[in-house]
């Protein structure tokens, strides 16, 4: 979930995640794909970013106290900003241009239609940074397919943005072989030359270590799960539905809601909520699925909770409470927004950023509409037992063939894009030029058509400040989002390999590939729970037990990030 969670931060990320990326990620492989993504392989024997020597390559942390958030971060939440925007009080975080006027090409995933390359937003950003950035925007939905080919060629762009969910297969090996060690520029006190980068939390930098070297520029994200059970609060209030506090109550509520004849179902696929409610270890990245229990490493697929969660989800499907569209699976699933707005289903689990983006999307045409997030319930009615996600999910890498001046220029770009909320650099990066790309009325910035066309993706993909949620247009949503994160954060534990960037040895790369598919087969009634038990025992004999030993050794050698 890391990739999406990272997106939940800034208002600009609205344009990026809200309208596009989350939908894209959800449809094309974000939410449902998560168990299959994650760093996995390296051509060499694999490794972790936790090794003893790794501490030395990490940059120093220098807090950037430009603006004080209205809601400080707690329990792994983002920073919350709920006040109005006042352009006059914006701070400057990059007093002098760091760019040396060089040319830097950046390849990045893009969701939507890319604007012309000489548009006003790119020009303004390049002028502010002092670098001539040439964007190579690629369709984000099929980015994994292009990425593999580009990295296999001898001619790669100066900077390549790679989301964690695109790091399957042999991509980690490509990252180690093709991208520059940024240690000489950023490790220790060297980073102080780039104050906004120095304010990125150390957790996120630790995740940027690949093959023992600092290679990535991270987008930090909250470690609280990013998947929220979202529901139609307006209809809930009208019909008197109550928020369920246990798995049984949820089931009963679904029965009450569902009326297929009237074209209303209770929910979409609730597998991810089920995993949370039953306390299943995270599936968003392979290393997060391992945890030390009574001195032995256990994988999520071996736990009884995993099977219970699948069985519960299967019952939801079998009882007919799930909207038929959800049976189609991820590649055929359409954007849930319109049918949710039409009331065809009332609950779905998705990224927290949709809480805001759906609100904004419907605000004018559908004033009664109210989307809200429900607290994750413990399956037995008690507190849920949640597992932490990774504290950074999207990374920018600089080619190892880039000259020192290109690397310096690329870092100058990152130093501007990582400016915190409340600065001029943040506004330009996330909103564009005032008057051209957005207007401010009563302290609420609104993008113009030109802003909507030009200020999406691109610069926000390079590096970003500590996770931030700021929605001046819907401050009550921003507040609720951060508070939800803080409440859930209180129930969140970190599993043994939290915070590390681990690459598994290549012979295990494809070991767990089929589990996500099998989960979907079971919940939709095409396979049985016993098939999963068989698959797990096959997994053990085909290398799962060896993989366990490999992780055990990693743990013995390096310890955990939390201890």
């Amino acid at each position, binding site marked *: 979930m890391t990739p999406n969670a990272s997106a939940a931060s800034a208002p600009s990320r609205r344009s990026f995640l809200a309208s596009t990326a989350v939908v894209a990620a959800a449809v094309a492989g974000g939410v449902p794909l998560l168990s299959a993504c994650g760093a996995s392989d390296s*051509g060499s024997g694999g490794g972790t970013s936790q090794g003893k020597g790794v501490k030395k390559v990490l940059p120093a942390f220098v807090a950037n106290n430009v603006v004080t958030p209205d809601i400080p971060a707690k329990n792994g939440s983002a920073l919350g900003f709920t006040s109005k925007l006042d352009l006059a009080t914006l701070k400057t975080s990059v007093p002098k241009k760091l760019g040396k006027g060089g040319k830097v090409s950046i390849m990045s995933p893009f969701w939507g239609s890319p604007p012309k390359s000489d548009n006003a937003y790119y020009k303004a950003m390049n002028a502010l940074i002092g670098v001539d950035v040439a964007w190579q925007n690629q369709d984000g939905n099929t980015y*994994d*397919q292009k990425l*593999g*080919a580009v*990295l*296999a*060629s*001898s001619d790669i762009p100066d900077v390549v943005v790679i989301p964690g969910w695109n790091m*399957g*297969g*042999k*991509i980690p*090996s*490509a990252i180690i*072989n*093709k991208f520059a060690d940024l240690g000489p520029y950023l490790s220790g006190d060297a980073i102080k030359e780039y104050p906004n980068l120095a304010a990125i939390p150390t957790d996120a930098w630790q995740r940027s270590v690949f093959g023992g070297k600092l290679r990535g520029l991270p987008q930090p994200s909250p470690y609280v799960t990013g998947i929220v059970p979202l529901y139609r609060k307006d209809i809930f209030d009208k019909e008197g539905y109550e928020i369920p506090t246990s798995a049984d109550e949820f089931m009963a509520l679904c029965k009450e809601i569902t009326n*297929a*004849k009237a*074209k209303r*179902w209770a929910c979409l696929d609730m597998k991810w909520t089920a995993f949370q409610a039953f306390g299943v270890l995270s599936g968003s990245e392979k290393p997060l699925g391992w945890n030390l229990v009574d001195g032995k490493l256990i994988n999520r697929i071996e736990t009884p909770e995993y099977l219970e969660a699948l069985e519960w989800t299967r019952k939801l499907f079998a009882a007919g409470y799930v*909207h*038929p*569209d959800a*049976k*189609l*699976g*991820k*590649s*055929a*699933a*359409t954007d849930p927004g319109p049918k949710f707005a039409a009331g*065809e289903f009332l609950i779905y689990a998705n990224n927290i950023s949709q809480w805001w983006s759906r609100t904004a999307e419907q605000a004018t045409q559908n004033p009664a509409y109210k989307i809200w997030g429900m607290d994750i319930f413990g399956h037995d009615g008690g507190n849920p037992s949640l597992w932490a996600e990774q504290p950074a999910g999207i990374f920018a890498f600089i080619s190892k063939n880039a000259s020192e001046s290109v690397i310096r220029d690329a870092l100058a770009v990152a130093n501007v894009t990582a400016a915190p909320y409340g600065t001029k650099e943040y506004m330009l990066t996330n909103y564009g030029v005032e008057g051209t790309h957005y207007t401010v009325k009563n302290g609420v910035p609104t993008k113009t058509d030109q802003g909507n066309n030009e200020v999406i993706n691109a610069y926000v993909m390079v590096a970003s400040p500590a996770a931030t949620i700021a929605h001046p247009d819907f401050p009550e949503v921003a507040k609720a989002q951060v508070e939800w994160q803080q409440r859930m954060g209180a129930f969140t534990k970190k599993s043994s390999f939290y915070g590390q960037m681990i690459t598994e040895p*290549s012979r295990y*790369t*494809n070991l767990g*590939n*089929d589990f996500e*598919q099998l989960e*979907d*087969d079971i919940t*939709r009634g*095409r*396979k049985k729970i016993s098939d999963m038990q068989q698959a797990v025992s096959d997994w053990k004999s085909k290398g799962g037990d060896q993989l366990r030993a490999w992780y055990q050794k990693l743990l013995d050698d390096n310890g955990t990030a939390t201890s």
Partner: protein
Amino acid sequence: MSHSTVPRSRTEADTTGKSPVASGGATGTRPNRPKAKLSWRLRFRRDRVLLLMTLPAVLLILVFNYLPILGNIVAFEDYDPYASDNGIVSMLHSPWVGLENFQQIFADSAFWSAVQNTLVLFFLQLILFFPIPILLALLINSVVRPRVRALSQAILYLPHFFSWVLVIAVFQQLLGGAGLFSQLLRQHGFDGLDVMTDPNTFKFLVTAQSVWKDAGWGIIVFLAALSSVSPDLYEAAAMDGAGRWRRMWHVTLPALRPVIALLLVLRVGDALTVGFEQILLQRDAVGPGAAEVLDTFVWWNGVRNQDFGYAAAAGLVKGVISLGLVLAANKVAHLMGEQGVYKK
């Protein structure tokens, strides 16, 4: 240049047609008849302009069809495209594993399940899909009024130009669990029917989609063949008292036979290619157990899981089987007295 005069006279004689031969024994002593006796150089000289004209196409085929065949080498490697600075050099650096990928594939139940799905789909489409364009062509051919004919042709061709995404979306809106048909059933007190996510009927669904989309397009070749049938034959048959059905059986169908045989051979050669995009889009709706075919198997393992060596091996197996099939089908066509795709 002194040599050139002799061959030129020969070629001229040759290209002017059969006249020297036809003129009989008087000229028979001149060695100008059998082409086989012309030396390679002479034929080259004669056809050089034609050869020059084919050159661009040959180059394209060489670069894009034949050169990539060398890439099959990764099927015998544990290929890591990132092992070096570019993918081709990586081929030389990746460890050689011999037939290991093939051994794994033959032991992989998912592969055999994909083979089975592919073959079942192929036969279903052969039986349910292949005859339909022929019937449609006969139907259209019997329409006399040109405007009606043009209109129905246009309507039949149109779906071919829709993308699969669109076609599947339309099917989903009509036949999906929340689609028109299901809601209609529910409104009348029945249970909804979700055709789109039923793995048991998936193969029929896929075939139905193909028919809806491409049957109309398939009639073009048959219509062309039909238009070449001389009206005299029909008139003569009618004079002899042949009715509608007998004329179709004895005149129309024999005229279509070579085309049918040709298309059948081509279809068999393509047997293991049963629609990649269409099936990939619906793979998750019914699960790989019902929807994995060889092409999606290769995609899943190669592009999605980046297990390139494994996927290349699966693709190679598919290619070899397809080659065998096309040779066999061609042989059968020859035995039936048809031209087939090629003849020695």
